[in-house]
């Protein structure tokens, strides 16, 4: 009984941490993005609310909360609201399978900093990722507006295409690690003294592309396309309901996908890896905290990389995006799969 209680408490703490990331960090990332964007474009960005606009996200949140609750006249109310739930919940749930660091011991209890360490972690990730399509399709459909429908269809088409690409791209690392558990994948990388990015550069690049597409980042942000579609499928949403979509799409999903990328390709919480040499840890002075810091560092870097792309590149057309997925990405991943299957015995030794 005591075991159960402590387990529940640990679970509660983990959930709180994740929620903090999802909502707190997610919200603050809006500010980060605006700042980064502004500096890329040589302007200051938000400066008014708080020091250098530090309180800007709170102000935005409050503003969103105090908007009138509107509902499009010809829409379907149930599906309209369901779309939001379907967007938020799966995207957040992905964090359940993200390992933030190695197992450690506090007060005599061994804790794995991962909410659900199951042997099908990546499958869970794919399943949750696929559910995101429903949110998009439902949002566009339930709004019953032409812009929304077109946007949602485009987005759904993109997500559908890149879902396949992501699935196949991750197969190489899975072969090398022989497991679907995210925690074990990191462990395997540490054991084999090798980040999988060294063996799977193609898969990593493809994954990054897919990540941009899935999260609707430039150059794949055709569904938003402010100039043409007025933010696409969210056009009929207002207030907090509107706020949730970008939150989920741009920040929560980007974070979670970055986290998975880090876990699968960049060795998770492990320090810098050089092939044939091993791990070098410049942050050794942090002691037991260093893995967590490494993890956060890698995720942040990936996120900033995405932001950087977002504010520098133009955008593609929808058919260019999808045909890139099927004509370039997918063949690449298939080749990569076979290639991995051939070299895998070397890695296993």
């Amino acid at each position: 009984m005591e075991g159960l209680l402590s387990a529940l408490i640990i679970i509660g703490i983990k959930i709180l941490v994740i929620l903090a990331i999802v909502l707190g960090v997610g919200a603050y990332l809006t500010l980060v993005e605006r700042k980064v964007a502004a500096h890329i474009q040589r302007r200051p960005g938000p400066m008014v609310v708080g020091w250098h606009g530090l309180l800007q996200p709170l102000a935005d949140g409050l503003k969103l909360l105090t908007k009138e609750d509107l509902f499009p006249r010809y829409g379907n109310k149930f599906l309209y609201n369901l779309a939001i739930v379907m967007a938020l919940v799966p995207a957040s749930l992905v964090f359940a399978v993200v390992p933030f660091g190695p197992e450690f011991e506090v007060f005599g209890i061994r804790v794995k900093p991962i909410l659900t360490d199951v042997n099908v972690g990546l499958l869970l990730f794919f399943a949750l990722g696929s559910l995101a399509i429903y949110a998009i399709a439902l949002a566009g459909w339930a709004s019953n507006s032409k812009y929304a429908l077109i946007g949602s269809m485009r987005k759904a088409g993109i997500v559908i295409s890149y879902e396949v690409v992501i699935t196949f791209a991750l197969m190489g690392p899975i072969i090398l690690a022989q497991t679907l558990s995210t925690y074990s994948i990191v462990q395997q990388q540490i054991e084999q003294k090798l980040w999988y990015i060294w063996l799977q550069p193609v898969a990593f690049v493809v994954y990054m592309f897919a990540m941009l597409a899935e999260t609707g980042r430039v150059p794949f942000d055709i569904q938003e396309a402010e100039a043409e579609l007025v933010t696409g499928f969210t056009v009929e949403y207002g207030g907090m309901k509107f706020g949730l979509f970008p939150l989920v799409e741009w920040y929560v999903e980007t974070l979670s996908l970055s986290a998975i990328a880090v876990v699968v390709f960049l060795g998770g919480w492990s320090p810098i890896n050089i092939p044939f040499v091993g791990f070098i840890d410049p942050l050794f002075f942090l002691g037991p905290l260093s893995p967590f810091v490494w993890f956060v560092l890698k995720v942040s870097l990936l996120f900033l990389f995405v932001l950087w792309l977002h504010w520098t590149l133009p955008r593609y057309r929808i058919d260019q995006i999808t045909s890139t997925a099927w004509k370039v990405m997918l063949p690449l991943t298939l080749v990569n799969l076979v290639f991995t299957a051939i070299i895998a015995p070397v890695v296993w030794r």
Partner: protein
Amino acid sequence: MDYMGFLIFLGVMLVLSLLLISLNSLLGPKTPESMEDYPYECGVPLYDLSAQSTFHQGYYLLGLLLLLFDIEAAFLFPWTVVYKHLGVFGFVEMFLFVFILTYGLLYAWRRGALDWQFEEEVFER
């Protein structure tokens, strides 16, 4: 037991998202106007009340492709996990499988299933 944390998290998220949905109607002002919930368009009355009519069939094609490849991926996952134990037999099997998969993709490509958006319209004169 492994999934308990996941389930609890799911419950928490559901509650949270419902809360976030309802916050607006709780906190926001209520100033009804006759046209405020009108679908967003150019400002002229709608020609067609429902937008849920038809859309490009290319999306269906994408859906079909997703189905095909996702199912095939589902077949490949178990294989990837136990590939180490299967040896050459496993490699050949997988190679054939991926080969057929690639053939399907090539076929779709060749038949133009992948360039659906801007195909040239042919007007018969």
